[in-house]
């Protein structure tokens, strides 16, 4: 068969979101690939130039449906950096806790998505079933299930509801049992292992040069986690360690994410222990930001997210620039794809957890 270009997308079961992966195939083997994005471009950065600082928080929630809290969190941190606000101690703990819950939720969404990618719907429903519990937790915390609008400049929206600790501990206990089930279903499954092992290997050096961050980078054996290397809230005081894997193949990326879910459970338990019971949770931010710049970076579930704010003395930002982790990882996807089979395309791209909302912005 001669070589031909195939459009995987923009409307295709493989694409999580609206984008197009053009691949050149020789028979079943991918010889070249080219991602085409921009179908979901909403002009987010231009839109923020016409909104007040608090009004951008719900918008930054909508950067990604899967990890909305972390996006509003990084936005708030950037603006706090610009305004020079210190966040109350309790709010820091609540933010870190929500971050970790969001990380679990997002990784569960990813776990759900790789099931149909690899051809098994069961894991999809199992993972979404447990994600529901975390959505319920967020719902009792802030009243919304997906776009939380919970983080505020200078703190968080409200305190945790009564019985929060009890519900959370119960959910985590149950979830840890369920984690074992996923590992039975995926790790102990010969076919899953056949599909994932030794697939699309990426060395640590290449990964660093390509700008890949997050679990994909840690799957290649690079020990870099912004929570540890550039700690932002109270992560330097918590009892946790970084999860890495050395092999750099798809299965290693899978393992890193699964380990991160367990680690997030441990972090949340630690936070519950150390969190102050009372105290302010929110500082009133100034209405007008000073002239200057603010920058914040944090460990999104998918990688390093960074926001850069320029204030010009009014209550609207002069310029807000976003670094989305997937924007960079997608630019590196041809390197991952070359030489693999068509059938591996969904699993490789599923393993980097594609979300187009934050990529196109």
């Amino acid at each position, binding site marked *: 068969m001669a070589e031909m270009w195939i459009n995987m997308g923009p409307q295709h079961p493989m694409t999580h979101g609206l984008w197009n992966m053009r691949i050149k195939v020789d028979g079943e083997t991918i010889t070249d690939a080219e991602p085409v994005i921009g179908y979901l471009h909403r002009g987010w950065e231009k839109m923020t130039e016409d909104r007040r600082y608090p009004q951008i928080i719900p918008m930054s929630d909508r950067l990604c449906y899967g990890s909305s809290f972390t996006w509003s969190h990084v936005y708030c941190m950037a603006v706090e950096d610009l305004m020079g606000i210190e966040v109350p101690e309790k709010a820091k703990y609540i933010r870190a806790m929500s971050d970790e819950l969001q990380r679990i939720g997002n990784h569960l969404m990813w776990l759900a998505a790789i099931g149909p990618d690899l051809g098994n719907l069961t894991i999809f429903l199992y993972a979404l079933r447990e994600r529901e519990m975390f959505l319920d937790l967020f*719902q009792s915390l802030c009243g919304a299930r997906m776009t939380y609008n919970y983080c505020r400049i200078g703190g968080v929206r409200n*305190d945790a509801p009564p019985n929060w600790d009890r519900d959370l501990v119960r959910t985590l206990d149950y979830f840890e049992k369920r984690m074992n089930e996923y590992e039975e279903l995926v*790790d102990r499954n010969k076919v899953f292992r056949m599909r994932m092992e030794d697939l699309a290997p990426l060395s640590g050096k290449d990964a660093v040069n390509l700008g890949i961050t997050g679990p994909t980078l840690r799957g290649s054996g690079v020990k870099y986690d912004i929570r540890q290397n550039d700690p932002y809230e109270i992560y330097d005081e918590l009892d946790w360690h970084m999860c890495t894997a050395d092999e750099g193949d798809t299965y290693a990326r899978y393992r890193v994410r699964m380990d991160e879910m367990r680690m997030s459970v441990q972090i949340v338990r630690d936070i519950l222990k150390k969190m102050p019971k009372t105290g302010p949770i929110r500082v*009133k931010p100034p209405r*007008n930001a000073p002239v200057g710049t603010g920058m914040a970076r944090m460990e999104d579930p998918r990688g390093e997210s960074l926001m850069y704010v320029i204030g010009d003395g009014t209550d609207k930002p002069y310029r807000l620039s976003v670094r989305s982790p997937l924007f960079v990882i997608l630019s590196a996807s041809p390197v991952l794809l070359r030489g693999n089979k068509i059938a591996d395309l969904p699993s490789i791209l599923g393993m980097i957890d594609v979300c187009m909302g934050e990529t196109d912005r």
Partner: protein
Amino acid sequence: MAESKKTNRQKELGLTGFIFRPMWLTLKQTLKSSRHRPNTVQYPWEKLVLPDVYRGRPGLRFEKCIGCGICMRMCPTRCIDLLEVDDIKHEEGKPPAKVKRPRVNVGRCMMCGYCAEYCPTDAMIVTPEYELASYTREEMIYDPYKLQFAGVPGNEVHILEVLPSELKKDVPPRPHVKNVDLPVVEDKKCIGCSRCAKDCPVEAVKMVEVGVNEKGRPIKRPVFDKEKCVSCETCVEVCPKSALTLQEVQ
């Protein structure tokens, strides 16, 4: 190195891990979900139990609202506008007074809850109503009467915050830190038209004579009552000469 890793992985898999572990797991799940009810919720017939804080469409308590327009200005999607409507309560025989109340385009609303959060009188609340589909777009525009919702105390959203300077002083957080954002008048631009005093929803603006001009007419300047002001920006918007700005006054 890589070889030893691979054998480790094989060992992990073990003999039982061929395909029987996942099959055993799914069999267990089948038995479980056949004996109990499955996990799914039969949506139109069964519904999830929602907490009081659930953010559905915004609701309005008509009597509490003062028509300040903070909700309109804080709305990120600009789906709220103020509408002059008849007051609900009026004495018999008299025509009802005209009051300003918010109207919400629920089709554009993104349920962020800012209107309830920033409302100085807790007149706007979040409601647990989320089934908002309708056949026309006009039905999605909720006028102030349709927007009314009695609500329970849990539907109110309170801001509990402290000032940055009070962070280390162990001051208890309190709702709506007032007296911080106040309108500041620029003396040269002000023409003393007293529009701000007329339009202020909480009557926090008083016009004070500060002297007379060369024609002998009194020069009036607005003075803002710190206690009453809710920092709603109405005066800033109506000022014909843009003499007012909202600034932090410490």
